[in-house]
C-alpha cells in the first residue's frame, strides 16, 4: 500500500506539478467523496456484523449468569446478576445498550475472568498490530520487487516465481510455523520458539520474537502478491499503449517503473487489501502456534470458553480494522485510476 | 409516408436515463419514417448520431420514450414481452460484429435453430430441413450445421448470422452495420447476398451504416441523421448525387474517392471552398 503510492508518487508528482500549477486540486472532491462513501458504508457493516454475532450469541444454550456464579449460588444472587447484566431484557434492548456502551469504549466484562473486555483487548492489540503491519510490509516489499523483476526480465525468473507462488499458496500457515520452530528454535536455537516481549521493554528482543511468526504469517501473502504483481505487470507490459510508447522512444526503465507499475497498481492494491484481511485472520493461527498474547489468541480462548462478551468485542475491533483497510484501498484506487475519481 | 407501410415510425424519441442525477441523454429526437414491404431504407450518420439506437428501439432493446412504432399494424411501443416474442420471427436483426454475434460454444445448427423456437410446432426433421434450407440460401455448406463458429471466417459468420435471421421467414430485418467489420471483397459478397435474398423472399431492410456509398448501393430511400434528427431524406440516387442539406454534402465531400485524379480535384475544390469561407 504505502510502497505502491510512494513509488508512483515520486515519479509522477514532480513532472505533473511542472506541467500543471495545481495538479491535485481538481481531484480532491473525488477523493473526499470516496472517503465519505466508504465511511457511510462502514456504518451498516459494523451494525450488521455486531448485531449478527449478538443475536447468534444470545441464542446460545447456557446462561452467562449461571456460569459466572457457579452451580451453588443462590437464586437471588442469580436473578440479581441477571438483571445487572441486563439478561432479563429483550435481545434488541441488550444490543442497543451494548452498542451505546461500545461507543463510549466500554465493551463489558469477561464472563471468564471478570475483567474489562476493553482493557483485555487494548492490552493485546499491540501484538496483533505488530504482526500484521510487519507481515504486510514484508510481503509487499518482497512481493512487488519479485513480481516486477520477474515480469520485466521474463525467462527462468518468471517460472520460478510462478512455482514458488504456488508452493507458498499451498503451505498451511500452522505447518510453516511448526517447521520454523523445529528448525530455528529447536534445532539451531537461534530464535525464541514462543512468547512476546513488548517493544518498550526491549526492542531487540521484540524484533527477535517477531521474526518467526511474521515469516510464517507472510508466506502466503508474499506468494500471492508476487504472483499477482507479476501477472498484472505482464498484462500491462503487453498492452498496446506500452508497445506504442516504446515504439516512439520511451525508455524501458520508465516503461516498467512508471507507466506499467501505475497501471498494474489497481490490481496490486486489490490483492493487497485481500491479503491484509487475510493476515488479520492469520494472526489467530500464528498467535496460537507461537504462544503470542494477541487478539487472535484471545479470540480462540474466548471461543473455547464461550466467553461471549470478549468475542463480541473482538468482532467489533476486527470489523473496524477491515473497514480501515478498505478505506486505504479505495484511496489508492482513486489515485491510481483517474476514471474512478472523475465519476 | 403511407398508411399501410410494413413499419411505421412516428415521432420517435429515445432518451437514455441518466446515471444518478441529470436529465438523461436524448439519442433520437422526433424521428418519423416508413419502411414499405420489399424495400430497403438506409439510415446514415456518424458515430453518436443515433442510427443504431433507432434500430434497437424498434427491436425493443432501447426504450421508446415518445412516439410510436407500428410493425405490420401492431404497436410496438407498449407491447408485452409475450407479444414481442410472437413477433420475433417476423422482425429480425443482423449485427455489425460477426465474431460477437455467434456463441462460440454452440454449433451453427443450434444457433440458427434458436430463431425457430417460437415458430409453430416443428418436428425435429422439419427443423433440420429448415436449417439446411437456410444454409443453402446463404450459400453455406450444409455440413456447417454441426460445426462451431471458431471454424469460420468473418464473412462466413456473417452469412450464418443472416441464416439465423431469415430462417423464421421474417418480413423485416434490421441490419446494423452488417458489413463494416468485413473486408472489402467480403463486404461485396455479403451485400450481394442481402440483395439476392430480398429479391427471392420479398424482405424489407432497415439498413444502418456510416458509409454513404454502401447505403446508396443497397437502399431505395436514404435518411441522413445528425445528432438524433433526420436532416435529409429522399431517393437514394438523388441524395447521393444531389445532396440538399449541407451536412449530407459535408459527409460526401469528406469521404475520399478511390480515384487519384478525381480525389485531387475534390481536394483542391475543398481547400478553395475553405479559403473563401
Amino acid at each position, binding site marked *: 500500500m504505502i510502497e505502491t503510492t510512494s513509488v508512483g508518487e515520486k515519479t*509522477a508528482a514532480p513532472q505533473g506539478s511542472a506541467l*500543471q500549477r495545481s495538479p491535485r486540486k*481538481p481531484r480532491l472532491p473525488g477523493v473526499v467523496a470516496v472517503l465519505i462513501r466508504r465511511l457511510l458504508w462502514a456504518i451498516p457493516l459494523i451494525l*450488521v456484523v455486531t448485531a449478527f454475532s449478538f443475536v*447468534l*450469541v444470545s441464542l446460545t444454550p447456557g446462561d452467562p449468569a449461571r456460569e459466572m456464579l457457579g452451580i451453588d449460588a443462590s437464586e437471588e444472587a442469580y436473578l440479581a446478576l441477571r438483571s445487572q447484566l441486563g439478561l432479563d431484557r429483550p435481545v434488541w434492548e441488550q444490543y442497543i445498550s451494548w452498542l451505546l456502551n461500545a461507543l463510549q469504549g466500554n465493551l463489558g466484562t469477561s464472563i471468564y475472568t471478570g475483567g474489562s473486555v476493553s482493557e483485555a483487548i487494548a492490552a493485546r492489540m499491540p501484538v496483533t498490530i505488530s504482526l500484521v503491519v510487519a507481515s504486510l510490509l514484508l510481503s509487499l516489499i518482497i512481493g512487488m520487487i519479485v513480481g516486477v523483476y520477474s515480469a520485466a526480465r*521474463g525467462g527462468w525468473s*518468471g517460472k520460478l516465481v510462478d512455482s514458488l507462488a504456488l508452493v507458498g499458496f*499451498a503451505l*498451511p500457515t*500452522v*505447518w510453516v*510455523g511448526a*517447521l520454523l520452530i*523445529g528448525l530455528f528454535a*529447536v534445532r539451531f536455537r537461534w530464535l525464541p520458539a514462543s512468547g512476546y516481549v513488548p517493544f518498550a521493554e526491549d526492542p531487540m528482543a521484540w524484533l527477535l520474537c517477531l521474526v518467526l511468526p511474521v515469516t510464517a504469517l507472510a508466506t502466503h501473502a508474499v506468494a500471492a502478491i508476487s504472483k499477482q504483481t507479476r501477472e498484472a505487470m505482464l498484462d500491462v507490459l503487453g498492452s498496446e*499503449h506500452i508497445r*506504442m*510508447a516504446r*515504439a*516512439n*522512444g*520511451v525508455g524501458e526503465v520508465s516503461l516498467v517503473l512508471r507507466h506499467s507499475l*501505475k497501471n498494474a497498481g489497481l490490481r496490486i492494491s486489490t490483492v493487497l487489501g485481500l491479503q491484509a*484481511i487475510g493476515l488479520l485472520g492469520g494472526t*489467530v493461527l500464528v498467535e496460537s*502456534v507461537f504462544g503470542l498474547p494477541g487478539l487472535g489468541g484471545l*479470540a480462540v480462548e474466548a471461543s473455547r470458553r*464461550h466467553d*461471549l462478551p470478549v*468475542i463480541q468485542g473482538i*468482532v467489533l475491533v476486527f*470489523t473496524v480494522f477491515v473497514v480501515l483497510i478498505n478505506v486505504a484501498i479505495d484511496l489508492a484506487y482513486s489515485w491510481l485510476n483517474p*476514471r474512478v475519481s*472523475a465519476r | 409516408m403511407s398508411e399501410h407501410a410494413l413499419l411505421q415510425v412516428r415521432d420517435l424519441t429515445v432518451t437514455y436515463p441518466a446515471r444518478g442525477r441529470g436529465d438523461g441523454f436524448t439519442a433520437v429526437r422526433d424521428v418519423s419514417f416508413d419502411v414499405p414491404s420489399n424495400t430497403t431504407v438506409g439510415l446514415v450518420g456518424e458515430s453518436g448520431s443515433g442510427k443504431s439506437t433507432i434500430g434497437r428501439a424498434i427491436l425493443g432493446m432501447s426504450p421508446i420514450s415518445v412516439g410510436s412504432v407500428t410493425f405490420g399494424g401492431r404497436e410496438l411501443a407498449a407491447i408485452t414481452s409475450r407479444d414481442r*416474442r410472437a413477433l420475433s420471427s417476423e422482425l429480425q*436483426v443482423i449485427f*455489425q460484429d460477426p465474431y460477437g454475434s*455467434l*456463441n462460440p*460454444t454452440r454449433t451453427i445448427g443450434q444457433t440458427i435453430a434458436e430463431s425457430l*423456437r*417460437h415458430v409453430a410446432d416443428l418436428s425435429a426433421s422439419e427443423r433440420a430441413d429448415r436449417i439446411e434450407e437456410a444454409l443453402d440460401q446463404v450459400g453455406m455448406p450444409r455440413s456447417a450445421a454441426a460445426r*462451431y463458429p*471458431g471454424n469460420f471466417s468473418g464473412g462466413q459468420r456473417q452469412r450464418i*448470422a443472416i441464416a439465423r435471421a431469415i430462417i423464421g421467414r421474417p418480413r423485416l430485418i434490421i441490419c446494423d452495420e452488417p458489413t463494416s*467489420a468485413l473486408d*472489402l*471483397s467480403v463486404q461485396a*459478397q455479403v451485400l*450481394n447476398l442481402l440483395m439476392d435474398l430480398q429479391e427471392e423472399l420479398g424482405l424489407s431492410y432497415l439498413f444502418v451504416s456510416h458509409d454513404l456509398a454502401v447505403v446508396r*448501393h443497397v437502399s431505395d430511400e436514404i435518411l441522413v441523421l445528425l445528432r438524433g434528427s433526420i436532416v435529409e431524406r429522399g431517393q437514394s440516387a438523388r441524395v447521393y448525387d444531389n445532396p440538399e442539406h449541407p451536412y449530407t454534402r459535408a459527409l460526401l465531400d*469528406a*469521404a*475520399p*474517392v*478511390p*480515384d*487519384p485524379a478525381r480525389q485531387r480535384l475534390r*481536394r483542391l475544390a475543398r481547400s478553395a471552398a475553405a479559403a473563401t469561407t
Partner: protein
Amino acid sequence: MTATKSSRKESAAAEVSPHAAQSPRFLRRLLKRGLARVCLAYILLLVIVAIVAPMIWPEVLTERTGDLADVNQLPSLQHLLGTDSLGRDVFQRILVGAQITLIGVAQALAVALVLGVPLGLIAGYVGGRTDRVISWIADLLFALPGIIIILVVLAVFPLSMTAAMVTLGVLVAPGLARIVRSAVLPVKEELYVSAARVSGLGDAYIITQHVLPRVAGPIIVQASLISAAALISQTGLAFLGLIVEAPAPSWGGMIAEGLQNLLVDPWLIWPPGVAVTLTTLALGLLGDSVRDATTEGWAGSSTKAKKPRSRRAQEGLEVEPADRNALLRVEDVNVEFRRPDGRPVRVVDSVTFHVGRGETVGLVGESGCGKTATAMSIIGALPSGGYVESGRIVFDGVNLLDLDARIMRAYRGKEIAVISQEPSVSLNPGFRVGWQLAEVVRNHTGLSRRAAKARVLQLLQQVELRDPEQVLRRYPHELSGGMAQRVVIARALAGEPRLLIADEPTTALDVTIQAEILNLLRRLVAERGMSMILITHDWGVVADVCDRAIVMYAGEVVERGVIDELFAAPLHPYTKGLLASDPHRSIGEHRLISIAGSVPPPGSWPSGCHFRTRCAFAVEACAEGESPALRQVEVAHDVRCIRADELEDHNV
C-alpha cells in the same frame, strides 16, 4: 467500432492455431494437459481413500492410544510413516483423517456454490437494482473478518465442523458471486445474447444455454481455489482443536500433536503437513490448468527475438531499380509468430519495398495480410511472440536488424515514429496527456521541464488542437477519438522523425474527422519533408494521400506502383478484384464485383501463388512450385502473377 476491430484481431489470431479453436469444450482440452490429469487423478484417489480407509480401520476413529511400547517410531515396514507419541500408526491416521478433511472441504464448497453461483448469475444478468442489492450484500459479507466470525459460530456450536465449514462457505460465497457476476457482464453484452432475445427466447433459456456455459470456466477455477482455501482453513481450525474432537484423526490436529512433541519427535509434523500441502497444491494446480485451458490461444509467451540470419536474395527478386539511397529499404523480410505450442507461423513472406525521402507509400490489403506485421518489424515493435526471421531493413544505409537493442532504441521516435489505429488505446490511461508528451519530448531532447512544456504546447498547436493548454491537463479517456489521434500524432512528431509509420490512423474515426486527420498528415509530411508509410484498407485514403502503393495479400507483396497507374491499370487479379468490389467505384451497378472466399490465415497458404484459391484466372501452372516472382511490368510497376501480361487488358 473499437470492439469490432479488436475482436476481429483476436479471432484472426485464433485462426492461426486452428487446433485450439476447434473444440470449444474445454473438458477435452483440459484432459489434454498432463498436469491436469495428474491433479484429477490425485484428487480422485484421495476421495476413494477417504471413503475406504475408515471402513478398513474403523478403530482409528476412536482409539486413544495404540501400542504404548511402540511410541514415536520412525517409518518402518510395519509402520509406513512411523507411530505417534501414543503409539498409533501415523499412516493409518493420515488416511482415515482424509475423510473428515474432505467432508469439511465439500461442505464449504457446496454452500459457496449453491449461494454464489445463482446470486452471481442473477446480479450479472438482471443488473439494475437487483445487482446493486446483491453487490451491496456481497460487499458487506466480503468485508467480514472471516475467521473471527467462524470463532463466534464455534462458540455457539462447540466442536461442530459442519457449522464452521457452512459458515466458511457463506463467507466465501460473495467472492464467488462477484467473479461470476463479472464473468456474466461481458457475456450479457454479447451480440448473440441480443440476437437470442430478438428471437424471442426467455431469460431462463438464455441464462442456461448461453450464459452458464460461458462462465463455467471461471466457476470451476474458483471452485478449486475455494476448495484449496477451505482445506487450509479446515487445517487451521482443526489445529486449534476447535472442530474435531480428540481421538478422531484430522490433518490439522496431527500437526498440533506434532508441534507439541516437537522436542521429542521432530518427524511427526511432516506427514500431515505434506498431506495438506500436496492436496492444496493439487487443487490449486487444477484451478490453474482449467484457467489456462479456457483462455488457451491468446496467452502469449514472452518474446525471444531470434537473431536474424541473412538469406540469399531470392532469385527473380529484382530489387526495384529505384533509389539505392532511398530512406528505407525493406529487403526480403520474413516475419514469424511463435504459436502457443512453440511452432513458428510465417505471417510475412519475403516482403521487399522501399520508401523514398519525402515520399508517402501506402500499404494496402485485407485484414490479416501482414501489413501491420511488416510495419512493426521495421521499428522492432512486433507484438509478443513475433520476430523477424530473416531479411534486411536498411534505414538511411544502416541495417536496423543488425543493431543491438540499445542503439535501436535511439531510432525509435527520433528517426522513425509510429501512430496506430486505435488512438484511445495507444495512450496510457493512467497519466495525463501533458505528462506523457513531456516525457517523450524530454527523452528525445533532454530539455528542462519548463522548456519541455513549451515544446509540448507547440506540438499540440502543430496538430491543430484547439485549446492545447487545457488538453494537457486531461486524461486520455477525456478526449474524443479525433483529439486523441491528434495527441498521438503530436507524440510521434516530438522526436522530429524522418519516417512516420501510420497504421490505419483513421479507421476508427468518422469520415469528417478522417478528412481532417488526413489533411493534417499530408500537411505535416509536406512541411517537414518526412516520409510516411500509411497502412490502410481504404482505397479512397490511398488515392487521397499516397504517392505509391504496395498491395499485400497473404503475407506477400502482390503488386506495387505509382497510384495513378495502379488505380487506372491494376495488373494483379487481386488488385483488380479489390478495386472493383469497392462500392465507391461501382456507383449505379446493381451487383458488386466480389472475390470469392476469404484470405487464408497464415499457416494455410496454398502452394504456388498465394491467391490461387480465389483467383478467377488461375491455371494449373499457378499451383506449381514457389510463389511467382515479383517482376517489373511497366516502369516502377511490379506484379507477382504469371499471367499478368495476358491479363493486362482484362477487367474482372
